[in-house]
């Protein structure tokens, strides 16, 4: 078989199988646990208003930002009691899904 180029090994149930490894598998993102202190954009859009300042004390349920996306003004709510550590965006910024918007502590 001259198709043996690019062969690697895949571990299934502690056996190593010689095989081609797909790009999808090679490019998969390693898992990182969710950090609730970091507020990410849950949808691509534009930062319309920032309602808090760094150092400000916030409570669970407070509005942090308004994200304009899909013709809706989406309120980003605070998920825990704490303090705003830093704000990573400014009003008018276009953000893609998963962009860090704000960090709490």
């Amino acid at each position, binding site marked *: *078989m001259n*198709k*043996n180029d690019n*062969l690697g090994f*895949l*571990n*299934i*149930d*502690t*056996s*190593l*199988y*010689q*095989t*081609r*490894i*797909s790009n*999808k*598998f090679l490019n*998969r*993102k390693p*898992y990182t646990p969710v950090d609730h202190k970091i507020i990410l954009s849950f949808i*691509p*859009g534009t930062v319309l208003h920032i309602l808090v300042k760094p150092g400000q004390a916030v409570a669970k349920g407070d509005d942090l930002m308004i994200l304009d996306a899909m013709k809706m003004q989406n309120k980003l709510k605070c998920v825990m009691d704490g303090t705003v550590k830093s704000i990573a965006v400014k009003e008018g910024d*276009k953000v*893609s899904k998963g962009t860090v918007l704000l960090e709490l502590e």
Partner: protein
Amino acid sequence: MPVNKKIRELQEKREKVLLGGGEQAIEKQKAMGKRTARERIMALLDENSFNEYDLFVEHDARDFDMDKKSLPSDGVIIGSGTIYGAPVAIFAQDFTVAGGSLGLMHSRKITKIMDHALKMRMPLIGINDSGGARIQEGVNSLAGYGEIFFRNTISSGVIPQLSVILGPCAGGAVYSPALTDFVFVVDNISKMFITGPEVIKTVLGEEISMEDLGGARVHSEVTGNAHFFAMSEEECFDQIKKLITFIPWNNSQKARAFEPGEPKPEYNINKIIPEDPTLPYDVKDVIRAIVDNSDFFEIMELYAKNIVIGFGRMGGRTTGFVANQPLEMAGVLDVDSSDKAARFIRYCDAFNIPIITLVDLPGYLPGVDQEHAGVIRHGAKVLYAYSEATVPKLTVILRKAYGGGYIAMSSRHLRADFVFAWPSAEIAVMGPEGAANIIFRKEILSSADPDGMRKQKVEEYKTKFANPYVAASRGYVDAVIEPSETRKFLMHSIEVSENKDVSMPYKKHGLPPF
């Protein structure tokens, strides 16, 4: 008016409409490397077989100065013809007329030929080349799409539906192809997406070319939306014609039988599989060693390569093949390969095509990404599809058949009609290494030489369980056969399954995990 004058009048009217959007627009189409809609139909159908309908249909839109615009045939050609003598209904959008945009009458022409195809129980081929909805016609154009999607759904599983993407197919328009059985794409010509690069750039600031967003390669390798990839329109038409020879005209018939032919001797079935179950080989060589003339017609060749699907013939009869591919990702089942296999199994079942399953897999792909991507519900599709299929189901276990993978791959327990295993088969709850580590954990850990003990126990397990005879002793395997006997056993099984008749409990429809 004398008759011949009237005939000439018809000829003149025809000639005018047959030019479509006119010479300039045709030149533009050619500059993009594309044929015109009519040329495409002629290239695809048998010579002189095309009967065109609704040539003189025109729109009656009035808003936005539409009443001053004449759009020949309203930008779509419909009719019927034959491919190798098989009847097909066809529509082809004409990009040279208002960018092939879909207005009300354009959609009515398409739904007319769809209704015709369903009523006459013949395959439908749609050639898509359209800028999308005709905005000037507003909600009428949306209604048109909805009527097409509805018919795609109702015809699904009754007549074969083929979609050929030979230009842009964007926005809602993509859902017609997505609802059909097979989607054909051509490199650099086909473009499919819900939201185009411009919108993505405006809204998100992300820049991407049309080709990278929704080109032929993307849909063949990444999304799984397309089933056949070609480098040119010509190659694409050859694929369509070949597919038509493998499938029946509708769900109450069988595919046409062809003259049987022996596999080519260069595919030596005794020499394909390495004995060591961790070493790869190309399972397509095994298929080619079994099918008539070694002619295997693969579907979704570039997507989820760890499972192979496609058509071949056994004794002249169309047969669907599903095979684990040890050469790619060790042949594991994962989200994408489960999706790919399950849909194909259901296709074969809907159109009376027997299924041969070749098994050699170590199990499911481990990983957080797989679990979070829903490998449970996607994997369940394979079990569902095999269990509900009532066409003849034949299984050959070539080598590994471990754990859940063994059950899923058309096992006796999901009502395979015939299960054969090669002497190299290892039908077990898991691979010998994993099994020995669990069963002999205490012995291994308490041994003065754990590695030596592990090796010894793995060997013990291999000798005792890594074979086809335990499963054969329970009747889960009908026969352990030599590789060289495979074709003979399969041909006989298909022959005796000719009148297979099983009944299922009444239901409106099941709830497959999609």
